[in-house]
């Protein structure tokens, strides 16, 4: 009944109420009324409706995305002080060549690298285990691993700070002392703080990435494995030649979000030292932006940090897409 589209009312279907015959009224003061009615009809027409739906989005996009991005770029060429703004050209960008920026860039890159190295293969392994036919208690394990993702980084950080506190009786130190090692002042040294930040991210994201991979695994047709078994493939063969190629889209997705989240990292560092750590051992790019922009009021310089972050992310995203794109071509043949 619904499906049989009525050829009986072609006009209505095509044009909606727009084509409804207006009650024609040729009195003098009705022109305004008429235009108002046309406007109203126009508003209700099928052609205008989608624009009405997207209008709030366009408004917010221009106000809260487009305008700030353009302003950031412009601000990065200015020296901005209360009451006066001075064009300084590339001066802010020249200032970027300093040890603090290098340190922030280094910390951020190392952090991102670690999260990629850990948060792709290990969740993949867990997903494969959970997806295997003989596994028991899948829902339970999935739920357990997912729970950390529900906590905010701050609450997770509170727990980590207390577990890894400097006292010898805190969990982490008593654990390593059990193995005869010396207690560590976790927050004080570069490698230890990096370990803490990466662990925090790992703890929170392991389950989410595992679920991404699980979704990918469940989309692999079972017949593929059955066919491979008939051809005498063993488990490792099946993993390399079926599982890995089929998981490629999911892996690319996980890689992309991990890369982006890594370079935008702020909270994992903030919970340990806010933005002022000794020797900047936990300073990240966003942390540096926050510090310069909001604490020292260096709006121009802060913007230059932001723009360079944008450029770095764009370049890395491009490289990553190129690399994974070429892989896809190979895999397709």
């Amino acid at each position, binding site marked *: 009944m619904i499906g049989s589209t009525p050829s009986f009312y072609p006009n209505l279907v095509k044009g909606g109420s727009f084509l409804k015959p207006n009650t024609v009224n040729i009195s003098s003061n009705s022109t305004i009324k008429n235009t108002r009615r046309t406007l109203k009809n126009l508003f209700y027409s099928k052609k205008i409706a989608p624009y009405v739906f997207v209008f709030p*989005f366009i408004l917010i996009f221009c106000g809260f995305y487009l305008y700030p991005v353009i302003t950031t770029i412009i601000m990065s060429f200015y020296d901005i002080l209360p009451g006066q703004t001075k064009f300084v050209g590339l001066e802010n960008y020249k200032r970027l060549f300093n040890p603090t920026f290098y340190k922030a860039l280094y910390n951020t890159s190392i952090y991102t690298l670690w999260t990629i190295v850990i948060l792709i293969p290990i969740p993949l392994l867990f997903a494969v285990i959970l997806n295997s036919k003989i596994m028991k208690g899948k829902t339970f394990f999935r739920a357990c691993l997912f729970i950390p993702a529900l906590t905010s980084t701050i609450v997770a950080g509170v727990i980590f700070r207390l577990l890894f506190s400097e006292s010898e009786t805190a969990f982490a130190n008593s654990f390593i002392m059990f193995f005869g090692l010396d207690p560590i002042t976790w927050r004080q040294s570069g490698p230890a703080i990096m370990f803490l930040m990466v662990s925090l991210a790992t703890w929170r994201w392991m389950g989410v990435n595992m679920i991404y991979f699980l979704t990918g695994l469940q989309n692999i047709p079972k017949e593929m494995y059955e066919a491979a078994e008939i051809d005498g493939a063993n488990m490792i063969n099946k993993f390399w030649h079926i599982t890995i190629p089929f998981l490629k889209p999911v892996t690319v997705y996980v890689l992309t979000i991990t890369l982006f989240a890594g370079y935008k990292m702020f909270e994992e560092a903030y919970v340990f030292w806010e933005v002022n750590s000794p020797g900047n051992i936990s300073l990240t790019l966003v942390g540096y932006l926050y510090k310069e922009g909001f604490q020292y009021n260096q709006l121009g310089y802060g913007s230059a940090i932001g723009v360079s972050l944008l450029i770095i992310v764009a370049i890395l995203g491009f490289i990553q897409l190129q690399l994974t794109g070429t892989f896809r071509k190979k895999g397709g043949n």
Partner: protein
Amino acid sequence: MTNKRKSKWGKAILFFIMLIPAFIAVFPLAALLLASFKPSTELMRFGLNVYPQFELWSLDNYIYLFTDGNIYFHWFKNSLIISLFSTILALIFSSMVGYSLAMYRFRGQNVILFLVLLIMMIPFEIMMLPLFRMMIELGAVNTYTGVILPMIVHPLTIFFFRQFALGLPDDLMDAARIDGCSEYGIFARIMVPLMKPAYGAMGILLALFSWNNFLWPLVVLRTKEMLTLPIGLAGLLTPYGNNYDILIAGSVLTVLPIIILFIFAQKYFISSLTAGAIKG
């Protein structure tokens, strides 16, 4: 026979392998819960450990939180209001965009799709400085509006709604048009009810995101009474540990509602978080 025995061993090994990450995942939260029953002075002096020490147990931290720690419930209220409004507004606006991208053919459609993609690629963090200056000019610093405004367009949600709406029948729209329903009526009366599962999944994702959101509220909110939970709690992390009672009990009460919700609606949580991966 041997095969069966082999798989039995395999089953046990896999089970025990998975117990390790499951334990690591749950352990810190259990430790937090345990610590919330111990005196905060103990915690400050000795750090968090796993000895139960039942003789030290009391509800003092919680009692303090409910009696003298009034500030905590300010934060709780702020978090609740901000999460509620930003989720509802983001759902309304994002579903409108996603729906119109899926159901209509119009000029500029691809441009809008491209803009949505572009927002996904631009880190929000880089626009904070000009956005903050804008908020000063709008008088929105230290207000809920200031926190909520930039959050009401959420690209992933738009994508999800577009994907969902693509699976809905167009015939229904035509039938409704014949019955004299306006385009907006079709959306509000027919399509919104049909998109309920999408609203559920995305509602959870958005609510979780704004409940835990940190950086932007940290920039916008200025006075102690206006802070949200994560920012308030982060401020208590002083080396002196004088506020650890609120910090610990407060952290438990921040996570607990979400975990309880998760236990009852696990499927929705998981489908909402994987929304991006399927079509990604």
